[in-house]
């Protein structure tokens, strides 16, 4: 390997109230995959935005090929050969694959004195580019809107290559991909590396780092912690670098006294994704709901929460039959729902921590109809303290928080409502290891000490196995299996999730 192709030194960047990067450094060599990891809020995004020209550093310098450069906007970064792969954002769904790849630099041809787009050449070049990436099953005439996420990402990569990118930045590229798409992405990344393209790879999933990267750099709280060759490090070391301490127990589960039945669902019906669902959740119990994406887990949760009211069947809370036709009724009955889509369903991101925390309990922070700012602020301050939310003040807009802290705000909103039943849909998706452990600890404590009944939906089997007292498995809208904590193993759950015929594939541990 040669010396660094791109090098950042002494990078400092401040935003109002946040010191995002403190004297950070980073370098990429030609033809390597360099993973950049760190908890949310560690400064990864800021760093790559500096590399891609979106932000300019307050201090420090960038060197490309030994020459100092300044990138004052994303276009200059493109010209310097640095491209960023965004999730879908950079594409036009109504245009074809070829048009998207050559957006802004389509091949031209002269006709009657006018420069017009040479459609044929464009399609041929697009096909050639895709072929270079060993992608042969993608019709360049298709509209991008009709493609699945994996194919859109391939179009993004081809687009970057059409600009002769030497450095490719991939920010959480596997977050939305299915397993087979992930494998294809990995082989594309390896192919590019062989061709001498440098890749900056950002991920939460350590197993991907070990599978793909040559070197890995860890950031924490805006500071550079260290760079290792992947072959000389291990998960434990990286995690302790990321969180600044060794996390002894990733899934702290307290033994809880299981009490009376809090929720009983009887034959809940709302096709196609909720069919004849019956189960119970008891006080102090964490019930894990496993299943593939699309198996109807979230939909079933939303039937109980009244977003998608049941067509038939019964819901009993503490033994009493209740009718829930909208979320406000579910809230009145003491049900809280931490949804899967944090930004869209869980939070009102434009509003402050204070306003979000009190959203479900506006009555209790009000004197008659008037909201008491003092009570609200006290509530928010309590939440910030109890859940150790990292924020400047309760009046901070939740948009500015990291994923883990946003999730804590959502959880605090429901804890404020003093629920009997808390439904948590992918409670730790997309948040970093430290915050994840904190949320797990909180769940355990709520169940064990406050006797809260928790229904937890998760796609991560390690999380399901470690946190649940009982595990339910859904497939195609039906409950297909139930295991106790003692019975459950990854294999038998995966088996149940995919159906008897499919072979249980061990699901890689994700962080």
């Amino acid at each position, binding site marked *: 390997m040669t010396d660094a192709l791109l090098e950042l030194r002494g990078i400092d960047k401040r935003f109002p109230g946040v010191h995002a990067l403190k004297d950070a450094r980073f370098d990429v060599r030609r033809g390597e995959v360099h993973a950049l990891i760190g908890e949310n809020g560690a400064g990864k995004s800021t760093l790559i935005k500096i590399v891609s020209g979106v932000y300019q550093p307050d201090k420090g310098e960038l060197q490309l090929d030994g020459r100092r450069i300044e990138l004052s906007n994303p276009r200059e970064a493109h010209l310097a050969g640095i491209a960023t792969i965004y999730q879908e954002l950079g594409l036009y769904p109504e245009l074809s694959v070829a048009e998207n790849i050559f957006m802004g630099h389509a091949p031209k041809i002269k006709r009657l004195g006018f420069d017009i787009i040479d459609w044929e050449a464009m399609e041929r070049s697009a096909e050639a580019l895709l072929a270079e990436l060993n992608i042969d099953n993608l019709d360049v005439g298709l509209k991008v809107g009709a493609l699945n996420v994996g194919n859109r990402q391939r179009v993004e990569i081809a687009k970057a290559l059409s600009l002769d990118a030497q450095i490719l930045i991939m920010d959480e590229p596997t977050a939305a991909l299915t397993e087979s798409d992930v494998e294809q992405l990995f082989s594309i990344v390896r192919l590019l590396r062989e061709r001498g393209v440098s890749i900056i790879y950002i991920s939460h999933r350590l197993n991907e780092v070990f599978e793909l990267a040559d070197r890995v750099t860890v950031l924490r709280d805006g500071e550079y912690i260290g760079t290792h060759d992947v072959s000389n490090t291990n998960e434990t070391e990286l995690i302790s670098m990321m969180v600044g301490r060794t996390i002894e127990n990733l899934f702290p589960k307290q033994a809880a006294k299981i009490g009376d039945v809090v929720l009983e669902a009887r034959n809940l019906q709302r096709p196609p994704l909720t069919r004849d669902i019956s189960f119970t959740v008891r006080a102090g119990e964490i019930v894990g709901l496993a299943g593939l994406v699309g198996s109807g887990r979230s939909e079933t949760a939303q039937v109980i929460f009244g*977003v998608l009211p049941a067509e038939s069947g019964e819901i009993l809370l503490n033994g009493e039959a209740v009718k829930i036709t909208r979320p406000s009724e579910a809230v009145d009955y003491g049900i809280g729902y931490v949804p899967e889509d944090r930004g869209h369903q869980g939070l009102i991101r434009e*509003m402050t921590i204070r306003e979000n925390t009190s959203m479900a309990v506006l009555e209790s922070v009000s004197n008659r109809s008037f909201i008491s700012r003092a009570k609200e602020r006290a509530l928010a301050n309590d939440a910030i303290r109890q859940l150790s939310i990292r924020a400047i003040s309760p009046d901070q807009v939740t948009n500015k928080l990291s994923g883990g802290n946003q999730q804590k705000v959502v959880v605090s909103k429901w804890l404020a409502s003093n629920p009997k039943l808390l439904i948590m849909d992918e409670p730790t998706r997309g948040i970093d290891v430290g915050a994840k452990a904190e949320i797990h600890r909180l769940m355990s404590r709520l169940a064990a000490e406050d006797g809260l009944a928790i229904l937890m939906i998760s796609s991560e089997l390690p999380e399901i196995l470690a946190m649940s007292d009982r595990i339910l498995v859904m497939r195609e809208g039906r409950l297909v299996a139930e295991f106790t904590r003692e019975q459950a193993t990854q294999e038998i759950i995966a088996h149940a999730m995919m159906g008897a015929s499919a072979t249980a594939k061990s699901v890689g541990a994700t962080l």
Partner: protein
Amino acid sequence: MQETRTDPRNPTVHDKLRRLLISQEGVLFLIMLVSVLFLATRTDKFLTVDNLLQQGRFMAEVGLIAIPMTYIIITGGIDLSVGSILGLTAIVLGWTWQELGFPLELAIITGITSGTIAGFVNGLFIVRVGVPPLIMTLATLALYRGLAEGISEARSARGYPEWFFQLGQGELLGIPTQLWLLIIAVIIFAIVLARTRLGRALYAIGNNETGARFSGLTVNRHLLFIYTFSGFMSAVAGYIFVSRVSTTRSDMGTGIELDVIAAVVLGGTSIFGGTGSIPGAIIGVVLIQLLKNGLVLTGVTSDATIVVIGSVLIFAILVNNFIQSRRNEGD
């Protein structure tokens, strides 16, 4: 709501003052002040107590409707039918009194009730059927006006008794009656928006309707309420209108929706929902009214007046956008 968007760790009095000045409302207020001073130097008829009170009389109708319009736009909706509801109310009032022989008091109540129902119908279709507010109220803009014209059959009702004019032409302690009404309504509904659960819910809905619903807020009930409220306020404005001009015609209030929306948006309410305030909207109403009046008094022709007002609107919005984006830099 603007003041909650910044980081008030230790605000000093100076900080607070500065924040107020660069708030959307503060900037607009300064623009208004400058316009008033400028107009006052051009003619001595403009900056007189009599003239200003007279303008207060004229702006009451737009001002009253601007209140629910602000609420609606904050939720990300719009109500284009307010002018037609105003006209329908006026016609129902005049028609039930003159043609059906209702006592005038009952005719007033009937008129206002019909306007309120008209707003309720808007809300019902928006909430239950899911018709986008723009489409629904565009349809009822035509529908309610058509009803008014059908009922009136192009006849106007006049000859109201003396007491009826108290609201539109009378004074109370030297101030036009309807201006009192406007001032009281503005104070009450500004507080409702800024301080109560209802207000909070409207901002939540405007920023993220799904998130509001998932937090257990009764989104539909709130939406139904504000469109009904809009009908009610438009109806009250209709009653004031009739009382002010002493006659009832079916084309009353035509185009008033645009004045109202212009004022609300000028006042800093985002047309995409989520932000806005009543004080802002009212400053918008006042600014537009004073410009109209001042320019006419300085002898500008009415065609030119419209051009100037349009330019000032664009200028105010540009200045505000500039200042707000500077303020949010780094976000």
